[in-house]
């Protein structure tokens, strides 16, 4: 049992924290979404590469400085805390994991150093309309001859898709196995529609119409095991981001009740309010313990799927409680679009649902308990 960070990890995270405090704020996020073409400043992205954020998940042999998942999860937590809008999780965690697990020498050489430096952004196009919470439920099928694949169908909820230089698209092979493909967004037969996620994140809805992918675009043979690992990593990152955002929102609420006066006294002097803030604090601290456990599991995800489900379930549940309490304790002011609280609220709603909400994941656990005569997270 070792809960401590190493010195190098601590240094990288300290510098990341300092960077975000200096360079980023919620107003920056608003300007970012309002101004930049895809909501992303590529120059800043390059700077992150230099700071070591983007390559920390990538082996040195592939042009990175890692892999160090613990550090990456620490960055995810900071991203959540600062509501930093970027394809960090998509490119440096999801795509980098898939490329490292599945890519051949050419594919790795083409993309991993570029992801690590920030030169390239690669994102996963995985979800499908009506897919629900089960990431395994991929139905988009390829029709292939040996030279490649022909696709017709749709992917959706592709976060930062319009900023990407390359997509990794997941498909069903004719034999039902999962496969992953590197796809140039400019390939003929692709139509992308932009929209914003509930928290403002730029998203893509992608339609394929007889799109032809060359055989060389295929990443490895079966993508199932690599996707399992990727989803474990992504789930842990989602948890850590949520923990960062909850921590910040709980602190904002605490500060607010200390200054807001009603009935001649600060709100925070009323015991009923105090106890609710204590419950928020407790929820966040319990989630933080689970978040580091998720990180630990993401490093060696074999056999930890159920535990990750449980952790995501609890953290999703807390996302709801923390955001709803934060608004209620702020009162009307917290509901306004111009107040930061409402942005954290919407981000926490997105994180609650992303990769499965509490109802889905408690269902996974319940199903396992019922099927295994009561064996679940504990025997």
């Amino acid at each position, binding site marked *: 049992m070792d809960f401590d960070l190493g010195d190098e990890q601590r240094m990288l995270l300290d510098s990341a924290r300092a960077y975000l405090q200096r360079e980023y704020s919620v107003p920056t996020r608003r300007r970012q979404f309002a101004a930049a073409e895809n909501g992303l400043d590529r120059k800043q992205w390059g700077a992150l590469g230099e700071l070591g954020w983007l390559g920390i998940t990538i082996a040195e042999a592939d042009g990175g400085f890692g892999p160090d998942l613990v550090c990456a999860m620490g960055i995810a937590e900071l991203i959540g805390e600062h509501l930093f809008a970027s394809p960090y999780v998509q490119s440096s965690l999801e795509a980098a994991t898939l490329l490292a697990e599945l890519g051949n020498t050419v594919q790795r050489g083409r993309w991993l150093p570029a992801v690590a430096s920030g030169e390239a952004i690669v994102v996963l196009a995985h979800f499908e*309309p009506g897919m629900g919470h089960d990431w395994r439920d991929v139905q988009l099928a390829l029709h292939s001859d040996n030279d490649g694949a022909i696709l017709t169908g749709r992917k959706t909820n592709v976060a930062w898709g319009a900023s990407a230089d390359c997509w990794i698209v997941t498909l069903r092979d004719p034999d039902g196995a999962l496969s992953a493909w590197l796809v140039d967004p400019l390939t003929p037969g692709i139509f992308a529609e932009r929209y*914003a996620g509930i928290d403002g994140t730029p998203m893509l809805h992608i339609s394929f119409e007889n799109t032809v992918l060359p055989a060389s675009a295929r990443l490895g043979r079966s993508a199932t095991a690599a996707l399992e690992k990727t989803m474990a990593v992504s789930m842990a990152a989602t948890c850590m981001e949520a923990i960062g955002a909850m921590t910040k929102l709980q602190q904002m609420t605490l500060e607010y009740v200390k200054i807001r006066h009603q009935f001649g006294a600060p709100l925070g002097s009323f015991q009923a309010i105090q106890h609710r803030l204590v419950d928020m604090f407790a929820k966040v601290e319990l989630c933080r313990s689970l978040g580091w456990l998720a990180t630990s599991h993401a490093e060696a995800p074999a056999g930890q799927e159920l535990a990750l489900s449980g952790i995501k379930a609890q953290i999703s549940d807390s996302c709801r409680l923390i955001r709803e309490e934060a*608004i209620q304790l702020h009162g*009307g002011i917290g509901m*306004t679009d111009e107040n930061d609280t409402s942005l954290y609220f919407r981000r926490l709603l997105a994180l609650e649902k992303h990769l499965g909400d509490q*109802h889905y994941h408690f269902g996974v656990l319940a199903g396992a308990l019922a099927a295994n005569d009561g064996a679940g997270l504990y025997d």
Partner: protein
Amino acid sequence: MKLSWSQDETDFRQEVREFIATHLPRVLRDKVYAHQELGRKDFVSWARILNDRGWMGWNWPVEFGGPGWSPIQTHIFEEEMWIGGAPEVFAFGPKMLAPLLMQFGTNEQRDYLLPRIRSAEDWWCQGYSEPNAGSDLASLRTAAVIDGDQFVINGQKAWTTYGHYANKMFLLARTDPDVPKQKGISFILLDMETPGITVRPVVLMDGVHEVNEVFFDDVRVPLSNLVGELNKGWTCAKALLADERINAGKLGRTKRELRLLKRIANRPGRNGQRLINDLRYAERVARIEVDILALEYMTLRLLSDLSAGKVVGAEASLLKWRGTEIAQAISLMLVDAIAPDLHAPGSTATNPADPLPQALVRQYLNWRKLAIYGGSNEVQHNIVAKAALGL
């Protein structure tokens, strides 16, 4: 004791239902069911249809031009309005100001204003809350100073719902700064066109402009716009606040959303499964159904007390907070039912043919207000603690 609907009550409900079915324009009803935004015109056009039937003052006694219904009939009427998909008739004019004018207003005020409320010629907004006086309403600071035969109003109101639609406002202003909080407040009417008034839109996190800030800069209104006695505005406001609370449960709307929830939960997903077949989800629906049942019969019990002339006090607070909790719970379940396909308010939906999912997220975001406005649910608890429990 017989807790079932009498023939008269059933007939009355049928009459209301048929009127809505035949007179509510389809396009309005569809907008309401689809949770699309309604404009001023939409609201007013329905109000005029109601007025033609003599129902705009639906909770008014006959002497003021109302139908003279019992509290239970009023309840049935409101429920059918919600369930039938009618645009909301906002309480500000007919249900909040009007009863107050009947009780405290002068004959001139009544004769002039009540018919204009019924005909929807006037759209009233409420000038109560202020940035630093939320649930602690009595700490308001907007001041009205008497200058000759006029009040001169300076200050700021917040959270003014549909202030941008309204041509009139009733407000609470401080007319005596030297006495304790509740004692120096007056209840004043004003025209929104009066010089010195600025209405600033406030967009909520659902992306919708519904509330406003209203600023008063030397706004002059005649002294005759005072309702009730000078410095006795709190008495008026209190009567009105209690009324607002009984209204706030909005049981019919909750039932309408429950019906929608079931429709969505009963839709086959892409693998043919229906959410309602998951017993865990079905139990959540079951629990909310029983919560609604309890609230419904609690409401009917209090309305029955009201009919019998009993005073309904702190229990109205209970209806307000339980009603809003249940509404919020349903709005969350609706979001859970459509997740993970959540899109930002105002963003293009993946399937523009079905804008409902996006509207349901908007509703969830918007309905956070239910537990905050009209006296937050925490304040309702304080009221019950004091009034009902003697704590």
